[in-house]
């Protein structure tokens, strides 16, 4: 009856067994998968920052026109572009074909005649982000306009409409009361003042400061102008630029650059003039980088140099910070809207993309046939529009993370306004014009510094304690001592950090001499107590079993601590004039933070002591007894046996313990976060703080924008930590496994 049943049930049992086998195997391999997933996911997020820029042609179209184009531009969503021509007309047209919206590339949306009866003599453009354009006319007047785009979402479809905004009104601003034609023009706006600077054909340089005021009655904005003439000007003027904060005016004349301080219009002064051309070359163009702290100078041999103002011994001065070599004569430099990138254009349609901070050439190639007359970068730097006569080309630009290069992360970089190249971590800022400083060196240094002081504190104590516990202590006592020390490993680091920051740091600050004295007094005290112990009557001495010395020493250490801290104020008066902190800072010139490396070293030391102790103790304890017994039988003292036999044998295990401890110290977050001021400084001073990779991630990650360079760099920091600890742990584990095999052979 049941043979079939049994068979089938056997079958199902077998199937179940198989399923269990595969299930468990799969489950086991999931651990490996988890580790690999972490590794590859981190890598996946980090990878894009090392990609270089790419440019692809997206659309080409023609816009027939008679007049000469003066400037072109693209709106933020890269749907609409505009051009200004010398018939004082602004024209708007689509640059992308979108059938759902009935848009074709090149289709004109609007053509606006800005002004009649005025002959254009010059044209100017403000910083890219301000989007101001100014016409200069032959009758000495100027008109400032700005393209205006309004986005609306009828039926959930984005619709952008274009218009012109007459910034200072529809009537031109009178620049030259004598009515001479304007030959050069510059325009810039800051808050409610707008500056126009013009050179006239009779060689005068005029600054017109326009300030706006809202009429309370009508709500209209009224502009009042105030014209100042600058004396003793260079000739001929080839280019004029204004800094975006309206503090400086840059006038290029041939190879010579004149820098005027125009903060106070009643006292305009020439603060610097210098030759800015590269060796054996002449200057072709000048441009200001976004933020307007840097001047970029292009040369006809392809050299582009960056100049910015730094504090020198002779006061603030513009100096040349770095050079890029494009190898083609640079005809135009087009800065990006918000980043420190710029595009260069050469005569044969060669376009270069550079990022100043990271000193990187991201792209340098010919992007189309023939030549390019005008070029414009989209506000989000994701597109490039070029124009030659009637034909337009729109290019897609992939350049998400220009700020990150190997050099920017790990080498000294000369940042704008810094007196010299330096390692700086300063990731966030108040405004768009800020130059992000992404050097990982200071925070890596901080990590190493924190780990170093922690190990300095932890390794001696942990190893000594491990040696004593494993080798000298009685087994009964070992059974309580070992778990007690190991329980410290379970203490949350947030508690250690909190104690370090709120309790230990003020205690150390107030009792610094006591702390130093404790470090010196304790070893002396222990040795003295031990020596005195040898004179105690044998009866008492023998009543203590081997290995109870540690218990005996507890009161000794406590007494040492008490004496040190009780004497601390006295010591402070004797040696440090009653105020150690002031003494350190004033007399020795050592900076002192309340939350410093000493505090971190002690707190993090305590966190790694149990790790090191536990592994080292295991290694020493499992040294085969016959080795030490043999040594003792041959007449060696216990100490000799320990140092020459036991420790040598266990040394790989001890090494592995230290590596594990180091791995933990490097990655520890909360203690460092809470026990230091988290300032990214580079200084070995034990009385100053640091910022570590891990604390940096914890502080900045919640605020970083997903997918931004900053976000990816924080992932890179995590990746670096991962690799660090992976190496330490893997090496330690290998060593430990080898040791275990060796012992089992013995």
């Amino acid at each position, binding site marked *: 009856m049941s043979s079939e049943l049994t068979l089938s049930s056997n079958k199902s049992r077998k199937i179940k067994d198989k399923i269990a086998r595969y299930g468990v195997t799969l489950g086991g391999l*999931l651990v490996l998968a988890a580790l690999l997933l972490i590794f590859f996911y981190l890598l996946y997020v980090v990878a894009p920052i090392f990609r270089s820029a790419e440019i692809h042609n997206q659309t080409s179209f023609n816009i027939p026109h008679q007049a000469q184009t003066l400037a072109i531009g693209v709106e933020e969503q890269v749907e609409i572009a505009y051009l200004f021509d010398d018939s004082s007309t602004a024209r708007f047209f689509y640059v992308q074909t979108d059938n759902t919206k009935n848009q074709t590339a090149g289709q004109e949306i609007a053509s606006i005649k800005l002004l009649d009866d005025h002959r254009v003599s010059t044209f100017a453009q403000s910083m890219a982000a301000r989007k101001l354009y100014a016409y200069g006319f032959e009758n000495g007047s100027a008109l400032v306009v700005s393209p205006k785009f309004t986005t609306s979402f009828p039926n959930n479809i984005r619709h952008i409409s274009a218009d012109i905004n007459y910034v200072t009104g529809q009537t031109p601003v009178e620049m030259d009361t004598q009515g001479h034609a304007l030959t050069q023009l510059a325009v810039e706006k800051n808050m409610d003042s707008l500056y126009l600077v013009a050179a006239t054909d009779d060689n005068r340089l005029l600054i017109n400061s326009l300030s706006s005021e809202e009429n309370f009655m009508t709500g209209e904005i009224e502009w009042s102008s105030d014209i100042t003439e600058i004396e003793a000007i260079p000739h001929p003027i080839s280019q004029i630029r204004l800094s975006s904060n309206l503090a400086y005016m840059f006038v290029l004349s041939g190879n010579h650059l004149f820098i005027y301080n125009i903060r106070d219009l009643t006292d305009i002064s020439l603060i610097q003039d210098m030759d800015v051309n590269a060796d054996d070359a002449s200057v072709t163009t000048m441009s200001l980088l976004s933020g307007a702290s840097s001047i970029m100078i292009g040369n006809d041999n392809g050299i582009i140099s960056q100049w910015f103002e730094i504090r020198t011994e002779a006061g603030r001065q513009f100096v040349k910070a770095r050079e890029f070599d494009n190898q083609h004569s640079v005809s135009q430099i087009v800065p990006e809207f918000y980043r420190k990138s710029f595009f260069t254009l050469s005569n044969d349609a060669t376009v270069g993309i550079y990022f100043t901070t990271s000193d990187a050439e991201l792209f340098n190639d010919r992007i189309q046939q023939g030549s390019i007359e005008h070029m414009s970068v989209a506000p989000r730097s994701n597109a490039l529009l070029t124009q030659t006569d009637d034909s337009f080309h729109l290019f897609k630009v992939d350049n998400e993370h220009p700020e990150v290069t190997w050099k920017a992360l790990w080498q000294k970089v000369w940042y704008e306004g810094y007196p010299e190249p330096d390692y700086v971590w300063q990731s966030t800022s108040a405004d768009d014009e800020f130059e992000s400083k992404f050097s990982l060196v200071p925070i890596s240094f901080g990590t190493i510094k924190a780990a170093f002081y922690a190990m300095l504190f932890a390794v001696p104590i942990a190893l000594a304690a491990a040696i004593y516990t494993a080798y000298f202590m009685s087994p009964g006592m070992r059974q309580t*001592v070992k778990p007690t020390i190991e329980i410290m490993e379970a203490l949350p680091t947030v508690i250690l950090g909190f104690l370090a920051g709120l*309790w230990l740091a003020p205690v150390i600050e107030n009792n610094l001499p006591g702390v130093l004295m404790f470090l010196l007094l304790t070893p002396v005290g222990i040795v003295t107590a031990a020596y005195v112990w040898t004179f105690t009557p044998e009866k008492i001495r023998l009543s203590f079993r081997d290995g109870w010395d540690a218990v005996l020493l507890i009161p000794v250490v406590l007494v040492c601590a008490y004496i040190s801290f009780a004497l601390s104020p006295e010591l402070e008066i004797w040696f440090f004039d009653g105020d150690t902190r002031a003494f350190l800072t004033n007399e020795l010139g050592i900076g002192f933070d309340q939350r410093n490396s000493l505090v971190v070293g002690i707190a993090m030391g305590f966190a790694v002591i149990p790790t090191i102790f536990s592994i080292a103790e295991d290694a020493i304890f499992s040294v085969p007894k016959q080795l030490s017994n043999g040594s003792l039988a041959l007449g060696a003292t216990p100490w000799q046996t320990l140092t020459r036999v036991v420790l040598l044998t266990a040394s790989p295990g001890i090494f592995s313990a230290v590596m594990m401890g180091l791995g933990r110290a490097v990655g520890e977050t909360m203690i460092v976060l809470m026990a230091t001021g988290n300032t990214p400084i580079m200084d070995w001073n034990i009385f100053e703080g640091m910022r570590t990779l891990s604390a940096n991630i914890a502080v900045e*990650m919640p605020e970083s924008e997903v997918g931004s360079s900053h976000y990816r760099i924080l992932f890179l920091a995590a990746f670096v930590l991962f690799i660090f600890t992976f190496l330490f742990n893997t090496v330690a584990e290998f060593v430990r496994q080898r040791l275990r095999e060796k012992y089992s052979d013995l």
Partner: protein
Amino acid sequence: MNNWFKSGSPWIWMTAGAVSISLIAVLGLLLMIAWRGLVYFWPSSIYQFDVLQANGESQTLIGEIYDTESIPARRLSDQGIDLRGHKGEFISRELIKTGNREYVDLDFRWVLESDIVSRSQPAGLAMFERSKNGNFYGYITEVLQQGEPVSGDKTEQLHQLIERANDLNEQAIDLQNDEIGSINYQLEQLRLKRRSLEINDKLTDAAIASLDAQKEQLQAQYQILEKALFAIRDKTERDAVVVTDMRGEKITLPLNQVLDVTQPNDMNIAEKIWHFLRQIGKFVSQDPREANTEGGVFPAIFGTVFMVMLMAVIVTPFGVIAAIYLHEYAQKGPVTKMLRIAVINLAGVPSIVYGVFGLGFFVYILGGSIDELFYPEALPGPTFGTPGVLWSAITLAILTLPVVIVSTEEGLSRIPMSLRQGSLALGATKAETLWRIVIPMASPAIMTGLILAVARAAGEVAPLMLVGVVKSAPMLPLDGNFPFFHLDRKFMHLGFHIYDVGFQSPNVEAARPLVFATAFLLVAVIVGLNITAIGIRNHLREKFRSLEN
């Protein structure tokens, strides 16, 4: 002496010293946290001081002594403090907590010992615990019931009136959190439902009418409840107490702001112990007040426990299966070796890296996809695409996986081979042997691993800061609204509470005792869990040792 040095025994003593230092550090640390944590709950005496002022007049100060120190006089004069002709190199001073925050510039002040003319602990001095502005110290002068002074035992009456006000306050809070909270939740659900219909093009007129009707009904209910709430609030404003403060001025404190009143100077030891226990009870059961710097830590305890339990549910099966694979199935080979290295590395990777991984992978990638698939109506507001308790639990599950694996494997290795062989010999398959014999025997080891994992997770803060913990969560992840478990919500955590209150709060001095109390709570839980785990493990070892012999 020389010989003694040569024998090496000083060095042995030095190593012994290292053990003593470690022991002192561990025990000292635990004792200090316990002491400073528990002192927070003990009713401390209130002193009245007469303090000499700079202008020669004396001023009365009432408050608790918070700290005492003796420091070189030089340091104080360097800080620009007027020592008023104090002689001697040292000077001692006391930090007095005077409370009454809205009437004085500083609720903590240092007073030089030499300036104190007299000090006393007068009976009748009362400490009022308030829901706003911290403690208030003073003498009870008048108890006002409906604006009229009461006759008879003022303290007795005051206690009754405070109890009444507190009951009413509690009613109001319950009403606000439960009934009104539920209506708000339902309204939000209606909004999402409407949006969801809209996305799917199913928003018919009938549907709109039905939704609007429900909405109106809810809003009507809301109006009623709101009226009830205001009625209760009005009632709480009935009574007040008049207190004479240290400036001698009479201050009227409305009783709806007074949580408790104690007169520690009049308490005997039994009353103090009772008060102490009551304070502990309040600490673990109440919500925090005043940006977490006062009140209890109940939501943090709840959040920690909830997250840790969720994590335990996730980590146990994976950890146990991985351990079984490693110990029972895996053959010696490169894969197994790599697996062991992976386990060691998972244990060694810094916890913040898990946080970064959890934020990027779980929150943004997994959570983002879940939102797109299942919660499109709530977009662009994220549901699971934002840090929350589920992601925290999963992240910590990966972090604690090695703990469970190592502990379970150790348990498996202690089970004698003969038991397995016996089972197999009787015809059981390997799976059956595992299920019926090995796993039941290893269950205490699995338990140990789980407890250790829970202890580790309960103390971990750094990764949680990225994947779900917040300073203050308005709603618990578990409540009476369907589906009861809200795994997408953010939560509070004891460890983060310590970091936040100790380092981010505006008045660290005032918050410090509370941080110690929280720290003590956390340490007690974690050390307790660890000792339990060690106990189970030792018990297990003994059991199998006897089995082997």
